[in-house]
């Protein structure tokens, strides 16, 4: 039964997606939509194959920015979450500021970073951190505070220290929630780097994209979008794979709960 449902879960969206692509392809081929407004999937595919070799360097730069920002976010979130969870005053003081900070539009901030930090990788990494940091922090905090009170009491009855309770129970218990935050942040990380690159620089998918868009090469623009989607999916599954390796019980437990 379960296996059947899994197949169903992957087949239905795949078929639906294929149907959408076919409709798209036919609409362009039959002239319902004009080719220079919206290139067809096959146009995009062949363009992608053609320009991919030129993009390797850009992909590499974007990945470096995304990964650096992602890991800095993880470190920052870990430190802050532990601090906020153990000292309630810190949580009360910082949490509202963090929420407000999330409402400041990045598009406004990003040009400032370029002014302050130049056209190198740093301003892009900062944008990635701004995008990724918050979901990771929130998921960690949620995880840390969602631990069953009874299990903490049980450990207290065994005379466990606060540090032991944190290490043995709270932190591991927060991992499932932490990883769901990581998955979201991982997908955002590529997008964050691309947004950062729009403002200028030497290399990166965002820069490549601005270039091809300025020359009205829409098929190339779409090809870059495909690459961005592929990279985002890639990091998403990398995080999922890591979760499976680090905590095999969590995937199984999630599946059993369904």
């Amino acid at each position, binding site marked *: 039964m379960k296996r059947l449902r899994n197949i169903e879960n992957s087949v239905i969206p795949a078929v639906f997606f294929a149907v959408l692509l076919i409709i798209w392809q036919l609409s362009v081929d039959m002239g319902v939509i004009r080719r220079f407004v919206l290139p067809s999937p096959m146009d995009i595919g062949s363009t992608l194959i053609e320009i991919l070799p030129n993009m390797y360097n850009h992909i590499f730069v974007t990945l470096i920015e995304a990964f650096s920002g992602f890991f800095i976010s993880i470190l920052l979130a870990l430190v802050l979450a532990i601090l906020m969870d153990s000292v309630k005053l810190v949580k009360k003081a910082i949490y509202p500021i963090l929420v407000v900070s999330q409402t400041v539009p990045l598009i406004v901030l990003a040009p400032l970073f370029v002014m302050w930090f130049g056209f190198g990788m740093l301003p892009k990494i900062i944008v990635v951190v701004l995008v990724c940091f918050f979901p990771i922090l929130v998921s960690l905090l949620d995880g840390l505070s969602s631990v069953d009170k009874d*299990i903490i009491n*049980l450990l207290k009855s*065994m005379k466990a220290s606060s540090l032991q309770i944190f290490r043995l129970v709270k932190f*591991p*218990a927060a*991992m499932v929630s932490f990883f769901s935050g990581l998955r979201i942040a991982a997908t955002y990380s590529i997008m964050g780097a691309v947004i950062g690159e729009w403002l200028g620089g030497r290399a990166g998918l965002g820069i490549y994209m601005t270039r091809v868009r300025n020359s009205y090469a829409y098929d190339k623009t779409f090809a870059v979008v495909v690459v961005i989607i592929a990279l985002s999916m890639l990091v998403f599954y990398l995080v999922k794979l890591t979760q499976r390796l680090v905590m095999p*019980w969590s995937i199984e*437990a999630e599946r*059993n709960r369904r």
Partner: protein
Amino acid sequence: MTTYRSNHEIKLELKQIYKTFEDTPVLEGISLQLKNKEFVSILGPSGSGKSTIFNIVSGLLKPDSGEVIIEGESYTGKTGRVSYMYQKDLLLPWCRVIDNASLPLIIKGMKKQQARETVSPFFSVFGLEGFEYKYPFQLSGGMRQRAALLRTYMFSKDIMLLDEPFGGLDAITRAKMHQWLLGVLQQLEASVLFITHDIEEAIYLSDRIYIISERPAAVYKEIVINLERPRGRALLTSKEFMDLKAEILSLL
């Protein structure tokens, strides 16, 4: 206090425990005793304050007045002496069964490998052989409770508090667990204080039963169960058992 120290028979004594939560009196003068290797049940309706008694015995809560005495020493409000098991198994889902059972030893400062070696001989006693390296989600409800009891036992081998440990199990599994528990306890040197609201369970397992009233709880009646051990399923339909059940029912 010296009188208790000389009397090695008494492991645990509660003297006139009072506890009030925000204007609601919950415990009103609970006094009881647990002797060495005895199985004593606290039987009372839900919400009467049974778990509160255990929270006080384990030291998690301080009573408003009264004393907890363990082997002649005052342990009022002190944690870390008795082991405590809840109705929920509270196994850590990210730890294998053997590491769950090792948890108390890890807390006491033992290294992981040594803790594993210390607990592993008990897996056969507790009917958990072959489950050492499974994760809790791979176990049935009954097996999880076994693992939880093993962990409880690893913390304190002489005094165990069991708070409705089989309350979440279906009737058939629970009957099996009763048989299992009697078998396990025969091989251990443990005194057990057991909470339940199930009359048959209390009679079947116990040497003595304290019946407590509705909130605010006080000990209403103490009943000695003089049924022969080892006990088997046939006992459940015997006349002595029925008489005891009728007697307790008339009290509630």
